[in-house]
């Protein structure tokens, strides 16, 4: 078991961007990334509305929603935000909650409706990086744009995350 753990440590040191996400120093202002796509489903809406307790007819009543300008139910905007965050996390640039704590949403705008069956992906850019008040950490601000399968922008936001500044302990 010890040997296995040693091998993992070696991998973590030699391939930090693959296994553990990048460090604060690795990011440059202006870096741009695009995530994979994700098709949003009715199940997503049901789970999300149940968890949040948001049963607005726009998300849960097809007959009423048909009469709106959207013609069908739409996703809660915050579900689009959550899915976009998941897509960004799965790019594996930002490690888990303990090392890359999400610290702020500065300007979240819903610019278009997302419907079940739509496929969304996220384009994001590093806008700013600075030292945090917390020793050993920096704050990275990124601007995300969520686009659907037709290339339409449905959500924009600036968010900040806290990131470790130093390399993994034990790595040179």
């Amino acid at each position, binding site marked *: 078991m010890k040997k296995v753990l040693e091998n993992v440590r070696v991998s973590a040191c030699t391939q930090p961007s693959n296994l553990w996400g990048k460090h604060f120093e690795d990011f440059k202002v202006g870096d741009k990334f695009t995530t994979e796509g994700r098709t949003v489903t009715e199940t997503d809406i049901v789970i999300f509305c149940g968890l949040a307790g948001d049963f607005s007819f726009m998300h849960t009543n097809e007959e009423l929603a048909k009469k709106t300008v959207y013609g069908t139910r739409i996703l*809660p905007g915050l579900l689009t935000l*959550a899915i976009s*965050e998941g897509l960004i996390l799965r790019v594996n640039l930002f490690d888990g909650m303990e090392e890359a704590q999400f610290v702020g949403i500065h300007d979240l705008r819903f610019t278009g409706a997302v419907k079940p069956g739509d496929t969304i992906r996220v384009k994001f850019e590093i806008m700013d990086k600075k030292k945090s008040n917390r020793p050993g950490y920096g704050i990275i601000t990124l601007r995300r744009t969520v686009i659907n399968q037709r290339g339409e922008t449905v959500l924009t936001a600036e968010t900040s995350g806290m990131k470790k500044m130093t390399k993994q302990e034990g790595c040179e």
Partner: protein
Amino acid sequence: MTKERRVFMTPPRTVTKADINTFANTFLTPLLRGRGREAHATMILPIIDGLYEAVRWHGLDAEMKRVRKNLVGDRPATTEVSLGWTNWKLYKPLKAGDTVTMEIKIVDARASKNRSGMAIIKLRKVAYDQNGEKIVDVDHTIGIF
């Protein structure tokens, strides 16, 4: 521009480890470290938005319709859409076992310049834990048409 001051208080809700894990595993990533102990920030807004749904039928909805009527006239409101969240400030993490309540206040309202018949209402939402400590405050802008 209309300024409103009435404050609405929601009933409390306890956030569980199951809530946090389900959210993380379904929408974020099962690899998220720390999951189960504290809610990812993108889960905090849906939780407080759900609390908002709990009070809207107890005065807040009527208040918003009254504000809309003053701004764009007495036409029946058919659709309400979330336009955005701004001025988000997180004071402490939301952890499994915390019981959250929220106060909501209409802080601004205006008629839309782009969409006839739509009123844009800004709500200030402040969430507290079971000890009365502030978890988050944020402005939520809603369009009603």
